[in-house]
């Protein structure tokens, strides 16, 4: 993949912005599905940063991916409020139904942990391709697995 033309557009859109690096990285990830290493140097050149500085920022944040995610992304909340409502059982049910563990991408599905979605009064909760889901129990986990594998 050659990121040049799209990247140039993104950099242009953020020219002169205060603290532009995170917005740029979000746009890069939206465009490519992840943040390819090839973009570090040109972004650095545009923002007067070293390649290492850009790499350091990419590496700091959980959101930025080093490889593309699956077609479906399930972010399952594992924080305290969801734990209090049987989140561990929901996790096991979902892992079993999908045949993959938290943190794995398999068959086009990325399953990962997230720590709080602000859906703590309808726990356990998840974000499925960006859409909120609440009150997840084992049955809902089964249904969700069916949905993303359809």
């Amino acid at each position, binding site marked *: 993949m050659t990121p040049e033309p799209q990247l140039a557009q993104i950099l242009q859109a953020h020219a002169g912005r205060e*603290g532009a690096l995170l917005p740029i990285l979000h746009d890069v990830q939206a465009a490519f599905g992840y943040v390819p290493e090839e973009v570090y140097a040109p972004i650095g050149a545009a*923002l007067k940063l070293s390649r290492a500085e850009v790499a350091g*920022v990419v590496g700091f*944040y*959980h959101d930025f991916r080093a490889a593309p995610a699956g077609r479906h992304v399930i972010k399952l909340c594992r924080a305290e409020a969801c734990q209090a409502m049987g989140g561990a059982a929901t996790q096991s049910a979902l892992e079993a139904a999908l045949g993959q563990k938290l943190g794995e991408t398999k068959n086009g599905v990325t399953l990962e942990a997230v720590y*709080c979605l602000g*859906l703590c009064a309808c726990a356990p909760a998840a974000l499925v391709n960006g859409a909120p889901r609440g009150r997840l129990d084992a049955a809902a986990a089964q249904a969700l697995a069916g949905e993303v594998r359809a």
Partner: protein
Amino acid sequence: MKIWVPSDAAARACGADALVPAILAEAARRGIAVEIARNGSRGMVWLEPLVEIETPAGRIGFGPMTLADVPGLFEAPEAHPKAQGLVEEIAFFKRQTRLTFARCGRIDPLDLAAYEAEGGLAGLRAALALQPEAVVDVVAASGLRGRGGAGFPTGIKWRTVLHAKAARKYIVCNADEGDSGSFADRMLMEGDPFCLIEGMAIAGLATGAVQGYVYIRSEYPDAIAAMRAAVERARAAGMLGESVLGSGRAFDMEIREGAGAYVCGEETSLLNSLEGKRGVVRAKPPLPALEGFLGRPTVVNNVLSLAAVPWILANGPEAYHAIGINRSRGTIPLQIAGNVRFGGLFETGFGITLGEIVEEIGGGTASGRPVKAVQVGGPLGAYHPRGDYDLPFCYESFAEQKGLVGHAGLVVHDEGADMLGLARFAMEFCAVESCGKCTPCRIGAVRGVETLDRVRAGDAAAIPLLEDLCHTMKLGSLCALGGFTPYPVLSALAHFPEEFTPVREAAE
């Protein structure tokens, strides 16, 4: 016939979106003209999705709605199995003092005319009529303290920025609401975004800042979208821009998205992140009020602090100060979550007791088993046993009890909770989320996990070591992440010591 279906993420998580086409289809089948409006959440999350029908007597609610409940909406409403009666007469709602959340759930969040009709912009107009120093005086006199957790007096922070000499100053809103059990920021941004915009504009006028940023965590896509849309509308309507409400005074703002780092809820880490750097904590001093975003004077306030300001300006500081106890003045939007029967957002004056919150308002556990512990204030807050039920909810009482109010999120756990496991989770979370700048947090959290594993394995000698480690983290960490992680650990140990003692062989 006008029907309200909430668009709040919690309502959507429980199926609100699917109700809209179902209601329209059912209405069409019956030949009834229906207008659907989307509102924010009333905060009664156990009733979500809470659908409301407008009647001459007021809005009547139905919830939690499922698709199967839709046809019944067009029959006799009082006979509907999910009928809740007049929404604002529901005990949970009626008992509140809703100042910050007065409009949330009542209006279409992006309808600026409705916002104004329900009291919006009155605070901004009042602020425009005052000199900056006088606006700061009002906020100071209200007794408002930072709602993000630290409880620092908002007026003092604003005064520092007002008097700082700089060509450019900033208002930064901390919307990195990462604490489990907290969702008030999210609910406000999704349900009444203009209220936050108004609060930020007032902060700008009071301190001489002309640019604001709202840093919202990426885990809140709906809130980000709502805020972006609201800022555009506010700008188009002249509420933001070169001349705020035609006053000739400028203030504008931008929404920025976080990238999944819990520590960025700490203000200096947030500022670094906003600048495009690693979200590493900065040593204080210098205070952000003097050297904040890009080294310039910056007000960093939580969503709820800023959103409280329009009401204070509109109604006067005395009215706000009259509510609350001790040095905890005004209202606090409690977020009742976890294993609880009536979970949701409950705005009330400081002073209500923990027991009232959990048992009377929250209705005890969802599972029906007895409450074992309530974690107050997020992942860095203490676990309180039922013995703490008499504690009045305020900054002072919780600090005395080796706990914290934090962002006022409460997570209820029933008897099944594994306290050692939760203590271990606190350390594990700190280890994952530590920014790495200071040793007590970076190394201490890892050692904490290992030490708790030794406790679990039956090594009694590990307990004093754990206490010593917590002491070091408390006193030696640069910010609240490492400094407060000991709170859940030590409170679990203090209140549930039997779960930390070695398991004896049954045969002995």
